[in-house]
């Protein structure tokens, strides 16, 4: 039997997309849909038990890759992983002092925000910072040669803090709406 893609192929290979940070979201969506059209268990409902098992494995794998590629943070972390610099590695946890100071400042602002307008303003500020960090990631990964993957991993870890904080901000906004 001939060779081809396997379940172990990288997310990028599976979707036939270039291995980089910048992503054509439309192409990703289109490919996800055509891959699922081939693999989804519903498309194999009339087939043998073996074929249905394989369909399930592929559909799961495709959804996993899609979710990871679609989310910029997960995508950057995955690129780090592919290049042997895992974001979660334990020798990698120290964050720069300036970054930690800013986090503390944001947390205080959230705790002290008197009303919805203040929380909204904070959300805007943090979102702007997030966009800036995504720009940094794009430069570090797509425009640097050779790529310093340890530096990329550090940026990704910073972004994780920011995303977690944004989730807290969202929860606060919801609470204020109720």
């Amino acid at each position, binding site marked *: *039997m*001939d060779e*081809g*893609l*396997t379940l172990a192929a990288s997310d990028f290979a599976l*979707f*036939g997309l270039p291995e980089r940070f910048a992503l054509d979201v439309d*192409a990703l*969506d*289109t*490919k*996800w*849909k*055509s*891959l*699922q*059209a*081939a*693999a*989804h*268990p*519903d*498309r194999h*409902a*009339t*087939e*043998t*038990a*073996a*074929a249905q*098992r*394989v*369909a*399930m494995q*592929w*559909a*799961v794998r495709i*959804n*996993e890759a*899609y*979710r990871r590629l679609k989310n910029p943070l997960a995508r950057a972390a995955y690129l780090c992983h592919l290049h042997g610099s895992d974001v979660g590695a334990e020798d990698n946890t120290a964050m720069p002092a300036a970054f930690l100071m800013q986090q503390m400042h944001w947390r205080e602002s959230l705790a002290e925000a008197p009303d919805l307008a203040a929380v909204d303003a904070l959300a805007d500020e943090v979102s702007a910072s997030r966009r800036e960090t995504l720009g940094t990631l794009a430069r570090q990964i797509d425009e640097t040669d050779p790529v310093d993957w340890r530096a990329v991993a550090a940026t990704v870890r910073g972004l994780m803090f920011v995303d977690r904080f944004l989730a807290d901000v969202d929860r606060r906004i919801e609470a204020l*709406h109720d």
Partner: protein
Amino acid sequence: MALLQISEPGQGPDPHQSRHAIGIDLGTTHSLVAAIRHGIPECLPDAQGRVILPSAVRYMGGGRREIGDAALASQPDDAENTVVSAKRFMGRMLADLRGHGKLPYRFTDVSGMVGIATREGVKTPVEVSAEILATLRQRAEDTFDDDLYGAVITVPAYFDDAQRQATKDAAKLAGLNVLRLINEPTAAAIAYGLDQGVEGLYAVYDLGGGTFDISLLRLARGVFEVVATGGDSALGGDDYDQRLAAWLLERAGLPVLEALAPRERRHVQTEARRVKERLSDAGQVTARVDVGGRVHEIEVARADFEAATAELTATTLRLLKRVLRDAKVGADEVQGVVMVGGSTRMPVVRAEIAGLFGRPPLTDLNPDEVVALGAAIQANALAGNAASGELLLLDVTPLSLGLETMGGLVERIIERNTTIPAAKAQDFTTFKDGQTAMAVHVVQGERELVADCRSLARFELRGIPPMVAGAARIRVTFQVDADGLLSVSARELGSGVEASIVVKPSYGLSDEQVASMLKEGFATAEEDMARRSLREAQVEAERMILATESALAADGDLLEPGEREAIEALLARTRTTAAEAGAPRTIEDAVEALAAGTESFAAARMNRGIRAALAGRNVNEL
């Protein structure tokens, strides 16, 4: 896909030309079955021409049952042996049921799920639902005069894992091959062909006899995502009857409903329902109320009815607005509203919806039938009968799935709205030195504390080699299949010790229990049980033979000559066994051998499909 034309000698016409797939709306108050006939979806009637089967089962003693209208007719005289609204109890324990004291049943907890004591012993809601499903299955088989290929069954979008699993168990018990469980609002949207239409937000307003559900769906790139759901499980058309009945009595200067004798009370309610239904077309109707030995005639204008029930309609709108708020969308962003449930025939409901959304709701299809029709369309596609083969429904998990961690906190593994099928693994570690076992507690819900989530299952991973706290690496894998059902496994990575569970949520009917329930028999399954299970094994064998043959026809070139011969030999053996064996087990063994022998062929075929999918797109993009 090209199918090889082969029919079993003596089996009549080519079986795959008539793969009978049905859609079933298993409802709280009534149920329906639909199928594609002559190219269009339609609901199948019983011998009396009735399409709607009331979801009522009466246990009469001696294994006899009344199901549907007959059961409803007997209900007033035999309430405690006549189970209605079993859907409300599916996958639930006694502690989950609020206000069950008002119901005429004697509830008990059996193997983790509520049961109802009847004169024929304790019946679980799964068994009651199976009676209804078996009745509909029989109806479909009579219609086609043939075996069924399989069924799609609808469930409410908010149904959790326990309720979905219970529904699937009921289908199994009723002898149905479940092709897929799909969400009711999604089925309604399919019936209207919205999956073929414009991407965007759609609302499904489902006002049934006793329940009100509102769902907000987003269609994007072929995925129907349930964005938000809401409603009231104790609000429906029956409440409208009740309000109108009260109004009629007051108008005629009669005592209130509660003060009447049971027979008179039922009469007034029935008359109220008739008047309500007439008022959907007529502006004015004369009600005839026979109370206290005298017939009272009361003129009812549509405006009177609407005023008497305005509070109910307003409640549905309030709940609807809450769902929009939850989803953070405005009414103007909704592209269409699908009406489901007989109660949406009321002009006032349609007018209010039109007012809120600034556009008339979709009402072309019969609101009682729309869910079953959508399920039939999906069943037909899954059976491989759809001409285009284009319909692909990608569903999402309605609720987050996670594990209990230290301190009663929930660690979410699979977030809500994850496209299914999905799998995700996460590593955990031990808490104490020398810990050799770990309890895995699987929960479902959005809250942070285990106590606020629904417990789905517990199991233990034992035999972890003793290590210092935090040294073990235990990988817990969650897998959700295309029906939204969960299985969880845990594995210690160093030693390879493994434990897993198919989340048969806390109650869990084992296959043996299902088998023993089957043996106890069904009213509708009068045929000899042994013959039935033999027939089912044969049907399954035919299904697998056909599937393998069509796979060989399509992709046989992937096989080396030796590989092909091996599969042909397995095929021949399955065919002979199915035709000659007298025991279902022998046939099942042959089918399993066939499945095992085609494993790598299946993998190679999928590989080809995946590459074709990618290549096709690449060509289009050039």
